[in-house]
């Protein structure tokens, strides 16, 4: 299968500026179009391992990062996220184009793919068992996720836990891991040879950068995983590493609170989430030291 890396920079730019680049990221194929240099830069740097399809292939999402018409094309240029002719968001400064692509793709999946129960969470897997890390922004989930996938865990996603109702398995959509502010430097220090996009500052989330997903995670993007642990992380400077079990009914509602489409899924959503809670052990996890966090995760026991 051809990958993005098989294209020369010029070929990449030609596709992006023209008919679009069809990229497969696990369960989804996106057609991406953009004349903006930052988008080509980000894709060239971070998407080398991902399979590409021909121009007349089927794409799940048709997205574009486009300049708006009028003056904002030239004066303090902006970028629009275009979803097949709709502009769901306000424009952003041109420099934010690559993060906008990543947020936009997450939005496409989380607002449409209702065959899955979708939780806002990171998902990592090791030894056939997956840990789900639901977390509101600021909990340190992404730092933890980025560290774990560089210490022996496979990346399924840093933002989207996709549960398949038929069998309760998790479906991967491994894409670049988004990091914010402090965690960019932390990961730069923690991961040798970390491939990071150029940080973009002054976004609504502060400074943002994306970390390339491990090649092995991308290569295994078609492999589902069985959920075993639900871990709510909380980074607290100076805190001792601790793991506290959560009663199942409480865990159920806390996960549902972090779901994109629990209510949309109706009875199926209930059954899928109940199955996940029953098959997993759920914990609150507090940490301040990444090495200790890694050791704790490595020691997690399979649920009985």
């Amino acid at each position, binding site marked *: 299968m051809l990958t993005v890396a098989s294209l020369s920079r010029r070929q990449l730019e030609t596709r992006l500026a023209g008919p679009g680049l069809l990229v497969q990221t696990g369960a989804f194929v996106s057609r991406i179009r953009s004349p903006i240099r930052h988008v080509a830069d980000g894709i060239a740097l971070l998407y080398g391992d991902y399979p590409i399809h021909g121009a007349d292939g089927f794409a799940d999402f048709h997205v574009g990062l486009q300049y708006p018409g009028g003056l904002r094309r030239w004066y303090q240029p902006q970028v629009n996220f275009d979803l097949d002719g709709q502009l769901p968001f306000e424009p952003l400064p041109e420099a934010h184009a690559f993060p906008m692509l990543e947020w936009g793709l997450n939005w496409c999946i989380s607002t449409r793919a209702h065959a899955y129960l979708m939780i806002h969470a990171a998902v990592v897997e090791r030894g056939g068992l997956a840990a789900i890390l639901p977390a509101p922004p600021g909990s340190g989930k992404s730092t933890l996720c980025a560290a774990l996938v560089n210490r022996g865990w496979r990346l399924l996603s840093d933002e989207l836990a996709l549960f398949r109702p038929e069998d309760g398995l998790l479906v991967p959509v491994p894409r670049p891991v988004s990091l914010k502010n402090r965690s960019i430097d932390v990961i730069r220090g923690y991961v040798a040879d970390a491939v990071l996009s150029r940080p973009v500052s002054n976004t609504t989330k502060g400074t943002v950068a994306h970390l390339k997903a491990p090649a092995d995670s991308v290569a295994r993007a078609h492999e589902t995983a069985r959920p075993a642990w639900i871990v709510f992380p909380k980074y607290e400077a100076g805190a001792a590493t601790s793991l506290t079990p959560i009663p199942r009914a409480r865990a159920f509602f806390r996960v549902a609170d972090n779901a994109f489409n629990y209510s949309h899924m109706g009875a199926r959503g209930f*059954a899928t989430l109940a199955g996940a809670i029953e098959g997993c052990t759920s914990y609150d996890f507090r940490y301040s030291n990444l090495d200790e966090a890694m050791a704790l995760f490595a020691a997690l026991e399979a649920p009985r």
Partner: protein
Amino acid sequence: MAASETWRLRPGQTLQYRQWDGECILYNDLSGDTHLLGDGAIELLLALRRGPATRAALAAVLQAEFDLAPAELDLETDTLLHDLQHLNLIDTLAC
């Protein structure tokens, strides 16, 4: 409420639920809501799933399953019935 009042499960409620460690979660087939219920509530619902029952019979179910003083029994029964009705899980049969 009258002791002879007959209650039933709302038609359409299939009682999809899980009971974990003394807490019960239940999916409401009519409203699409998900509820966190105590043991008393689920016992009443399961009793009604077997068939309509009078208030007196339901009070007896609670008395058999839980440690309730007679004074508490009435209040507990009525409160539960009222709450479950408000949640569209049960209603009364017309006489």
